[in-house]
């Protein structure tokens, strides 16, 4: 008797372990090779088996309890046993409370994270395959320098892929070869010119130097005159030309310094006025260039920092997205962005990567219509940065750090910007809510309970039926109760229908039928429960349906306890 709780716990543990093994084998056989890279095989199998085991925790545990009380345990009075049913039930009920806690922890603390991980594996595979395809296309077009980053993207996800590594190395080698060829050609040209010059005599070189001096090309004049002196140190004309050219060079350097000071002042003034006028991006580029040329200038240092800060308030750098691109995220985000009352603005992100307080979106579309359905605008932009500061903001313009011509900003397919064109737009959902608007299948199951609660407040505002998220909330709230009810009921049923007249050998191979039927019956119960709570939700709202469902659970639990109490303690009367 003292070990009943422990025995029951071990049986439940054994059943769940066997279930995990079964799901592990099942997942191994059913690995979706078309959707996932081979590197994800074991990660996917372990995670998928984990999710399936958590989902099946209730029927598996119930089967374990049912079989324990119906087959494994014996009542007092039976040969070799003195179990007291009431004490067994008491210990078991305590165990159930522990199991319910474990189940809730697994289902709410781990399962959504596991599901997100599976989505990420799929997302990473899509990204890697897309990168590889693009890399191959550029490689075939001999655009090797552009192809290399795409191979690197792929290898950041699948680093051990020898085939792609080989392709990358080949592209890099070809590129290096091209560069070497180019350098060799240039060196060859230089050598040819030099040998041509060396074939000339001092008189010819002096003539060339004189010609350059006449054309005011003082550096060349000095160079050729110097060459002539090397061939014939006695040539005075060459010495004179060299001296005159050098004097001219010195003079021009003095005048250039003066010019440069004036030029620096003019450029600083221009950059500063751009910053003052609010053209922060232009000011940023001007100051960046100045800083490169005059890194010690205090004014430039101060104002370039100021320009950078202001630029960061309205735009972001393209290279930021390059780092984020391989990070897995959520797909097909779509929602109604209520920014103005007379506007229906729809937002679509093909991919969304959240990094906590900031996020990045890729392949973005915004579409605005009037309440009558007339199209007002429709634009696309490759990337956006989402920040939270006094609400959620999305930056739609991205620039290169040093190339002013390289920038991404909204491209209007229809209509034009309303009011002042702005690269900053406000979004109604917060960064944590946005993944909840993913249109992929079962996306709400990927949300944690607290995320669902946060989602509920604005779900209707974003164009969705609030009952969808409320239904998920109620289903998850009722799950622990279902385990408690079924657990208690299974003790009563297992005990009532126990093998009183001995256990036969042929019972053992027939045992697997019981979990199968329990699976079907628990599925049926959960389905009926889902329907009932949805009906109540649509008829009477969230709070009332939650209360009614809790009442129903309490009623069922009471019923199962009464049934349990009605069981006899002994086999024989």
């Amino acid at each position, binding site marked *: 008797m003292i070990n009943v709780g422990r025995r029951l716990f071990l049986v439940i543990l054994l059943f769940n372990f066997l279930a995990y093994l079964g799901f592990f084998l099942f997942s191994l056989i059913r690995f979706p090779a078309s959707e996932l890279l081979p590197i994800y095989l074991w990660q996917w199998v372990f995670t998928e088996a984990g999710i399936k085991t958590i989902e099946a925790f209730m029927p598996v545990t119930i089967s374990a309890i049912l079989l324990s009380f119906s087959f494994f345990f014996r009542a007092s009075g039976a040969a070799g046993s003195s179990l007291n049913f009431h004490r067994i039930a008491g210990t078991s009920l305590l165990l159930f409370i522990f199991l319910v806690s474990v189940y809730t922890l697994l289902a709410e603390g781990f399962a959504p994270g596991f599901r997100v991980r599976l989505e990420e594996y799929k997302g990473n595979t899509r990204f890697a395959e897309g990168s590889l395809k693009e890399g191959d296309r550029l490689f075939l077009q001999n655009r090797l320098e552009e192809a290399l980053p795409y191979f690197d993207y792929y290898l950041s996800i699948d680093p051990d892929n020898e085939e792609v590594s080989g392709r990358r190395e080949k592209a890099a080698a070809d590129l290096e070869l091209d560069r070497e060829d180019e350098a060799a050609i240039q060196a060859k040209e230089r050598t040819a010119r030099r040998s041509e010059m060396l074939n000339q005599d001092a008189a010819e070189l002096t003539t060339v130097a004189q010609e350059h001096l006449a054309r005011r090309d003082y550096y060349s004049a000095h160079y050729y005159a110097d060459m002539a002196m090397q061939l014939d140190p006695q040539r005075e004309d060459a010495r004179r030309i060299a001296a005159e050219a050098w004097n001219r060079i010195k003079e021009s350097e003095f005048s250039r310094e003066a010019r440069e000071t004036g030029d620096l002042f003019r450029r600083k003034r221009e950059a500063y006025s751009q910053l003052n006028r609010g053209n922060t991006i232009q000011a940023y580029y001007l100051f960046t260039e100045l800083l490169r040329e005059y890194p010690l200038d205090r004014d430039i240092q101060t104002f370039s920092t100021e320009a950078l800060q202001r630029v960061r308030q309205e735009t972001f750098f393209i290279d930021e997205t390059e780092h984020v691109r391989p990070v897995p995220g959520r797909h097909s985000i779509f929602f109604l962005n209520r920014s103005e009352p007379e506007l229906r603005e729809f937002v679509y992100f093909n991919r969304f990567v959240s990094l906590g307080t900031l996020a990045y979106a890729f*392949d973005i579309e915004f579409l605005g*219509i009037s309440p009558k359905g007339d199209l007002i605008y429709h634009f696309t932009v490759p990337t956006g940065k989402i920040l939270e500061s006094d609400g959620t903001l999305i930056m739609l313009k991205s620039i290169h750090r040093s190339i002013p011509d390289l920038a991404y900003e909204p491209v209007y397919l229809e209509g034009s910007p309303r009011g002042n064109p702005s690269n900053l737009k406000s979004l109604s959902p917060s960064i944590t809510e946005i993944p909840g608007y993913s249109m992929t299948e079962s996306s709400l199951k990927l949300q944690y309970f607290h995320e669902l609660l946060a989602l509920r407040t604005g779900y209707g505002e974003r164009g969705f039926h609030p009952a969808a998220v409320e239904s998920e909330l109620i289903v998850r709230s009722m799950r622990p109760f279902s385990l408690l009810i079924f657990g208690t009921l299974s003790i009563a049923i297992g005990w009532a229908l126990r*093998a009183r007249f001995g256990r036969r050998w042929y019972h053992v191979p027939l045992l697997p039928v019981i979990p199968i039927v329990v699976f079907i019956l628990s599925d049926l119960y959960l389905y009926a429960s889902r329907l009932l709570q949805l009906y109540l939700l649509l008829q009477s709202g969230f709070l009332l349906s939650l209360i009614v469902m809790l009442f129903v659970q309490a009623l069922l639990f009471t019923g199962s306890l009464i049934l349990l109490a009605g069981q006899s303690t002994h086999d024989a009367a």
Partner: protein
Amino acid sequence: MDKLCVLSHECLPGDGPHATIRFEVSKVKGTFLIPVKYLLIYLLCAFILTLGVYVYSWCENPLKITGMYGHADLMFRSLYAALVPASLVALVILILILQGSRGFPWLMFIALWLSFSGLLFIQIAYLRPYQPLPPRTSLPVEIPGRIHSYRDGAVYIEESFAQGAPLVMMNVSGTINLTAGRIETVSDQMVSTGETSLERVPKNPFFHEALQAPPIIRRIFRDFAVISSFFAYTYSKSFNQAVLVIASFGFLISSCWIFGRFTSWPLLNAVYLLFVLRLVVLFSALMLGPDAQELFKVFVPNRRLIDFMHYIFAGAGTALVLWDLIFIPFRRFPENGAGR
């Protein structure tokens, strides 16, 4: 002194005449109460199943069914849908209850058979023919001002899915994913703006996952639909043939009782009974389905087809009863203390 017999296996011939008489009376009573018990369980099952079908149907399209009349109409149609499955569920429950009760086994079997077959016949002949689910559910759900989430994208409608009405469509495939326009063509299956189109799958884009019945439940309801349709068709052809075919089907189902006494372990028996009855319903639906009927027509003349089905059911039932007689006699109830 006479011993008070509480359970059948407690009364032995040596207990005295009064005890034996009381025991026999209680057995007669137990046998004749079977139709009453069956009817009561059937009513309870029908009530629960009707509520289930009603809730399901309402959730499928909550906006279309409103007002007292709408709900009452739906409730009645749900009742028709639940009747035949309820009669079988009630039979299973009764068999499980009868495992430990007193009565004359063969009379109990006959009472069970007649109760089930009689009720099935009354439902087929006198109540409205079985409909799988209320036909309204075939209409796709639409809610104004909401995003409808479909398999390949989503659609926002301002007012309705009518031709010329404005919409915003999101299609997951393609480089441009959003489209705004007016509905050019619309049907229950798809919606199109002319430039892009989207399939309206699933029909309930809001609670599709919650409404997804477990596959086995869907198949059971579909099998019942096939069986009931065949019986209704038979009844429309001939009264006598309908009686025969329903009675033979009832005989086969009732003879599955044997599996309720298959082993000495009641839980396993109950599970096996459910398992075998599911198989019987599945094979019956397969045989009565249009494909199998076409196949049978190759071997059996068309006018003899219903008789052929009747022979199959009766033959299978007889085989089970014979097996029962030879291998699992009724005295071997687990409660008799001589469980196998």
